[in-house]
Structure formats: C-alpha cells, structure tokens
C-alpha cells in the first residue's frame, strides 16, 4: 500500500501540486486522471521520489519513504517498476539488454535464467523475435510494451505507469490496459496509472483520483464516475458527444 499525505510541490514559485492526499491499494489498478498539464506526471514522480516534495509525507507500507536517504530509498526502489511517458528505454542497448539490465544489476541469476526471464517478460507483452533490435527500430507501441517488460522483470511490488496508452491505436491501447490489469492481480502489485484515456478509465478504474490544476477534486470508482455531479469532473469525462449521450442514458436508468 502506498499513502500520500498532503503533498505540495512548486516549481520556481508556481504551485503545481496543492495539498494532495491519496491511498493506493495493492492488487488494484489505481488511476490518476486529469487534463494535460494538471500535474499527473509531477504527482507520480513525487510518489516515486524522482522529484523532491516541498511538503507532505509518502508512505510505502509502514516506511516513511519521503524521509529516507539515497541508500534507504534504494532498497524500496528495487521493488519498483516504472513505465515513463516517453518509454525511456536505453538507446544504446537492444531490446533484450534493456529488459535484462535490472536482472544484471540486482540479481545473481545465471545467464540462462536471465535469458529465460527476459523472454518470459517479452512474451508477456507480445514482443517476439525482436530481441536484437534497438529502441530506435521499434514503433511507439512496441517501445511502451518493452518498457513494461523491463518494469516487471524483477517482479516489482509497485508498478507506476505514466500514460501507458497515449499515442496508441484503440486496440493496442486496450491490450496494454488488459496487460497491466492482469499482471497487477497476478503479482498482487500496487499499481498506479496516469491516464487521460476514458476507455481505460471505464475498463480498469477500480479506484480513480481526479486531479485538476494540481488539486484532487474527486475520488471514486468507474461506476461512480458516471453518476457523479462534480462539475469539473463531468466536463472532463464527458468532453465528447458520445460520452454525453452515455451519461444521459445512465441517469435515466
């Protein structure tokens, strides 16, 4: 379980996160939604400690993560996997080397065991026969999937995904959503996903946090989101006409 308490963060005097609190439970896909520029990425980077928070506390289980030093954080980080908004694969390494990197760095597995684990993870994300390609030779969706494979190589307890399906076609995007959901349950991970894709919200949203202008405006699950009367949330969720019709019909029921 991950708990964020009263997180605030500013850049050069501009407040990007304002007093956000949230709890993320294991075995669930926790979603953070919000408009572009609302502070989702910053929030996620604060949770994993890539950005220093100005105020507040971050707990991983019973450990106060935000107060740990580099060595202390390192222990918890070995149990984290993260998919960055731009994939962040290592350009100078092949697909196989990318996925193998965390294994090389933190395990004492033999070469065969590593290769087996790499191939297992790659298969899991439907990447086959591409082991020796470089990231520049992959499509955007393939890069995202390789990045997921790298993130799950060490069987993390915490998985963070920053916009796993932005820039993907609807079908691939569903495949990725399903995948994240499955491995979350399979490994009983605490998964946090940033997204502004309403499809994945309706698909995966067991727990949804809505951020607007750096403030948490709403919290709930996917069935509640259709019935919510929070004005800003409705403007965000029902931005297109199809969704508006959906809302109307769900209220009639």
């Amino acid at each position, binding site marked *: 379980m991950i708990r964020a308490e009263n997180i605030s963060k500013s850049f050069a005097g501009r407040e990007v996160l304002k007093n956000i609190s949230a709890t993320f439970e294991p075995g669930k896909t926790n979603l953070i939604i919000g408009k572009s520029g609302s502070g989702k990425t910053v929030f996620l980077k604060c949770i994993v400690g*890539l950005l220093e928070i100005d105020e507040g506390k971050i707990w991983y289980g019973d450990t106060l993560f935000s107060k740990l030093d580099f060595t202390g954080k*390192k222990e918890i*980080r070995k149990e*984290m996997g993260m998919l*960055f908004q*731009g994939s962040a694969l290592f*350009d100078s390494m092949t697909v196989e080397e990318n996925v193998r990197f965390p294994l090389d760095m933190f395990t004492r597995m033999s070469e065969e065991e590593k290769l087996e684990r790499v191939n297992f993870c790659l298969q899991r994300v439907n990447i086959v026969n591409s082991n020796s390609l470089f990231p520049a030779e992959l499509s955007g969706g393939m890069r995202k999937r390789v990045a997921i494979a790298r993130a799950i190589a060490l069987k993390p307890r915490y998985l963070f995904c920053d916009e796993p399906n932005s820039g993907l076609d609807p079908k691939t995007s569903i495949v990725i959503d399903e995948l994240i959901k499955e491995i979350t349950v399979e490994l009983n991970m605490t998964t946090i996903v940033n997204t502004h894709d309403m499809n994945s919200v309706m698909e995966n949203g067991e727990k949804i946090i809505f951020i607007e202008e750096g403030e948490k405006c709403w919290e709930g699950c996917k069935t509640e989101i259709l019935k919510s009367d929070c004005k800003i949330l409705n403007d965000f969720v029902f931005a297109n006409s199809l969704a508006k019709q959906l809302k109307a019909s769900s209220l009639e029921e």
Partner: protein
Amino acid sequence: MFRFISGFGSYWLLLAKVFARPEKHSIYYRQTMKELVSLGLRSIGITTIISFFMGAVITLQTAYNTENPIYPTYLIGLGCRDAIILEFSSTIVALILAGKVGSSIASEIGTMRVTEQIDALELMGVNSASYLILPKVIATLVFNPFLTLISIVVGIVGGWIAGTAAGVITTQDFIYGIQYAFIPYYITYSLIKTLFFAFIITTVSAFQGYYVEGGSLEVGRASTKAVVYSSVTILLFNVILTQLLLS
C-alpha cells in the same frame, strides 16, 4: 557570479556521487571496456592525423626561423622534439579531444537526461552518476596517456618527413637533434598533464550533460558548453601544472 559558485558546488557534489562505491563490479567493468573502445580507440585516428601535421609544421617553422649559420641544424630536431613533448602532444591533443570526446559525452548524457533514461536508472535504484560517468573517467585516464605517446612518436615522424622532404635538415642531423640533451622527465611531465586533462574533459562534459533541463535544444547547448568549459579549464590547468612541475 552566484551561478558560477553554485555550479562549482554542484560539480563537486556530482563528483562525490560518481566516486561512491560501485554497486556491481562486473557491470562497471563491462561499461569501462565499452568506453575504452568508444572514447579511446576511436580517438587514435584524429590524434595521429593532428600530430603528424603538427610535427611537420613545427619543424618547418623552427627551420625557417633559425636560418642562421651560427645555429647548427640539428637544433631543428631538438626544437621539434621538445615542443611536441612539452606542449603539443598533451595540451593541443587534449583540446582537440575536448572537442571530440567532450561534446559526445555531454550530448550522450544530456539526451539520456531529457528522455528520462537517467530517471529510469535512478528509479531502479542505480546510482546513475556513477554508472554513466565513472567508466568514462577510468577509460580516458587509462587510454589518454597512450594517445599522448602515440602523438609524440607520430609528431616526431611528421617533423622528420617534412624536414627532409623540404630539404631543411638531413636525416642524420634530425636524429642527432632528437637525441641531443634529452630529458626523460619531460615525458613524465607530459603524461601527468594528460591525466589531469583527461579527468577535466570527462567530468566537466559529463557535468554539463547530467544537469540538462529541457529538450534537444538544451542538449545541443550543453555540448557546446562542455567543449568551451573543458577547453578553458585545460588551458588554465596547463599554466598551473607547468609552474608546479617545471619550476
């Protein structure tokens, strides 16, 4: 001024991070081997070409500026040797490498910063500064002295070829000249300078790349700054080291 001091402070903090205890030696060893090839072996070509022409032009310059019968011609060989060993093979080669190696280090690390690859390393619990920079520092410290030795040899050969081809000195005189009053300590001096310069090139350039913020435009700027700052630092240390080592 404030920015300069705070930049200087972060440079030392980065160095402290770079020289923290490596987490896994086998990986650092592998990375160092890679860097030996990309920063070391791939610099042999340019070092050779530059040294050859430098040696040639120094010989001709010395010859045309000492066209006086009271100077024996073997002094041309001697002048060529000392100029190459004392200044050209260490300092000029270091300046050229600051351009080649420095900009490539800054842009490589800077690109990794703006595409979040450094964040990805940090998130895994890897000390990114040490993982990315230490192998480069070690590789250049190990390899650049060889580049300097190659440069000395090639420079003198260049001087000999140019000198004899232009007819300003005979082979016998040249060889006599390069052996005359030879002080072996000059080579040591040159190699010590090279070690300092190698350290400056890699750490200053890596520092510029590591703290890039923004996008590809800033990466370009960082790599320009890497070349400028490491060159200026090299020139400054050249004066300091010369005073310390030769006085």
